[in-house]
């Protein structure tokens, strides 16, 4: 038995300790918003936050995150930054197939949580680990700038 704190709730899982967090989330907890893309931390589709830090769940055994606080795409709207990012993504119609976008959004939220006014170079650094086969990169960049603008405005207000 492994105990995880997922999206604010404690969850007990009967999986072997070497099970990657990705499959525990998807197959056991039915949180399927987090995607499998490569299984080797090469594409970023499986990105979740562990204690706020973007983490590749496909290479993270559940035993390594026991008791830690895990946030997935399903709960990213609980935070102001998450909501701003999702809103910007919708407004600019970033998505195409959408399969990588949970991972993209988790990376973007972590970036904006740490850096409220990222430059293009900051975006490159934070987002270069997230592959998008549809190559929606131009809109991802624009949407991060847009979310930063929204968050800046909220702060002033």
């Amino acid at each position, binding site marked *: 038995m492994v105990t995880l704190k997922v999206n604010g709730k404690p969850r007990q899982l009967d*999986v*072997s300790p070497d*099970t*990657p967090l990705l*499959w525990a989330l*998807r*197959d*056991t907890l*039915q*949180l*399927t*918003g*987090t*995607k*499998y*893309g*490569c*299984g*080797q931390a*090469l*594409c970023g*589709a499986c990105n979740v936050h562990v204690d706020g830090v973007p983490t590749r769940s496909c290479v993270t055994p559940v035993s390594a995150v026991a008791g830690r606080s895990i946030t*997935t*795409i*399903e709960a*990213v*709207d609980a935070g102001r930054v998450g909501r701003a990012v*999702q809103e910007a*993504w*919708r407004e600019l*119609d*970033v*998505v*195409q*197939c*959408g*399969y*990588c*976008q*949970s991972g993209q*959004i988790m990376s973007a939220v972590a970036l904006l949580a740490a850096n409220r006014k990222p430059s293009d170079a900051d*975006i*490159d650094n934070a*987002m*270069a*680990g*997230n*592959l*998008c*086969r*549809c*190559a*929606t*990169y*131009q*809109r*991802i*960049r624009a949407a991060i700038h847009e979310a930063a603008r929204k968050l800046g405005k909220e702060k002033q207000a």
Partner: protein
Amino acid sequence: MNAPVIENLSRRGFLQGVGGLTLGFCISAPLGPAALARIAVAPATKGSPRGAPTFGFNAFLRIGSDDTVTVISKHLEMGQGTYTGLATILAEELDADWKAVRVEGAPADASRYNNLFWGPAQGTGGSTAIANSWGQLRAAGATARAMLVAAAAKRWQVPASEITVRDGVVMHAASRRRARFGELAEAAAQEKLLIDVALKKPSEFRLVGRHARRLDSADKVNGKAQFTQDVQLPGMLVAVVAHAPRFGAVLRGFDGAAAKRVKGVADVVQIPSGVAVLASDTWSAKKGRDALKLDWDEAKAFKLGTDEILAKYRELAKKPGLVAHASGDVDAAFAKAAKVIRAEFDFPYLAHAAMEPMNCVVRRTAEGCEVWNGEQLHTGDQYALAAVFGLKAEQVKINMLYAGGSFGRRANTRSDYVVEAANIVKAIDGRAPVKLVWLREDDMRGGYYRPLFHHALEAAIDAEGRLAGWRHRLVGQSILKGSPFEGMVKNGIDAVSVEGAANLPYAIPNMRVDLHSPDDIAVPVLWWRSVGSSHTAYSTEVFLDQAAKAMGKDPVALRLELLAKHPRHAAVLRLAAEKAGWDKPLAPGKPGTRRGRGVAVHESFHSYVAEVAEVTVAADGTLTVDRVVCAVDCGIAVNPDNVRSQVEGAVGFALSAALYGEIALKDGVVTAGNFDAYPILRINEMPKVEVHIVPSPADPTGIGEPPVPPLAPAVANAIGAATGRYPGRLPFRAEDLKV
């Protein structure tokens, strides 16, 4: 009567049978009474998401008493925006409130949902979704609007001609009466379907040509969108399969004892394509597969490497092939030439590498079987699955889910992974639903690549400095030969091998295009976003730049000269050149770098695209693509923002292939298994993309594929302008770009 007519937009067709099904090629599909009868078959009434009753108007539309307008999409949403585009067309003629519109995937039923360009087959591909649906969905919307009006006229006892409709509300101004769609839906659905209905003039469009937000955005940013990978059914087992290490290897035997001891593993079964490990979850199935002991007989397996394949192709290219196009007297033109130039081009195998690796859910039911899939070739897959289970095609129920990309991979002529899933269900006697999951390595090594090609070109320049002769020889596997679609091969020529080359638009008086289609290569091949044009646009457009150089002409000026009879090509070329500032000098790069600008124009799937690329080449051959300016003519842009989005993405997708894309084989083994060895473009490598749309009154054509072909040749021509060297092989290699 303003009868909607669908023009002949497809030069493709599927002619031969899939398991007894004859797939036809539609020359022209006027939307007469027969086609209207097809839209008139109402789907079963189902509840809307909020549970309100809904009423079917035709095969493509239900309206709920809560005003929800549900558009049924017969086409797969794989990222190309087709759900939104199709809904826009129907909602336009219906005068629906866009905020009330939602989309639902159609079931597999070719009697109602066939692709009108593919005869009696249902499927998505060849950038046909919007084009083949244009007239059909306009009629579906307009006739349903007329039914709503007729119902209101009866209820209010007023003439139908005095009734107007706007944003989901039916109104009679004189009596100040109004009703929402939901209030009229039940009565209106009972009204007679009128064929004699006027369609809107383009000047009356309120949705088409404007920016409608994607209908799938919300669910794709919060994790709710359902892909095949996300399907969970009660009692479902997850299957991971051990596949042959080489194409054509046969399983001699296996030991599954260790696999069965893995916690969570429920069964280990042999199937025609390998050994499947079934478990309660994906990780346990993978661990089980890793514990298998397998004995493969590789005596008849394919053991060549890509270098050997290429060497064979180069030899073949020395001999004439089957003639795909001949005009004028090409040999005489070369005999009289003042100057002859030559070039060869090599193109690698390419994997589609969709972010969602191939997968499929299958279960046996009392009625037959049920499938969940990012379904791209409904009819072919129905027949293939029926054959596995000994069913009739109509007993195969398919739930079409979102696909996490496809780029052609899910439209498999052999239904490979779908049949594999069915074979696993069969091997366990249908006792549980099965989700087949291909891991990334299974997907990348699973074959069905864009075929490897070798091209050889020669151009004859006459004494007056004109392009007088053009010879183009192509060597590469046929996608259609040996497939259930072999009937599309005419006189030995697979049209998709030479598309873009055999129909070169340039006014060159003497031309010959010939083709070798070797059939002794066992690497499975398939269409890859833009199919033949993914290589023919490169060889023809780069070679044309080399010819321009030899003739001392400007690449844009030469093209315009040769495109006098092709105004749509010329228009996109002019627009891209103008927006890119073709006539102005390019700003220099940092010291030690060279910059260049290149252009390419290409028509595919009846859409016209020109792209101008600006590049920087460092002394060591490192390439940066800085900016790409695109001009497109895809007829009426149903959703201009989606057109821009598709062009931006296609540029990145094509650049990925040009910079990195290569599936290499060594002794028959595919070397790359994951994104470390088959890299995909990253955000920091994405150029600035500008998209300009040519206003057009023509019926809409595709946009998913057409922006792909011009990118690599535009970049290569920019490299040529910067360095004087035109890359003769893809992907680009720094050693070929060094000055």
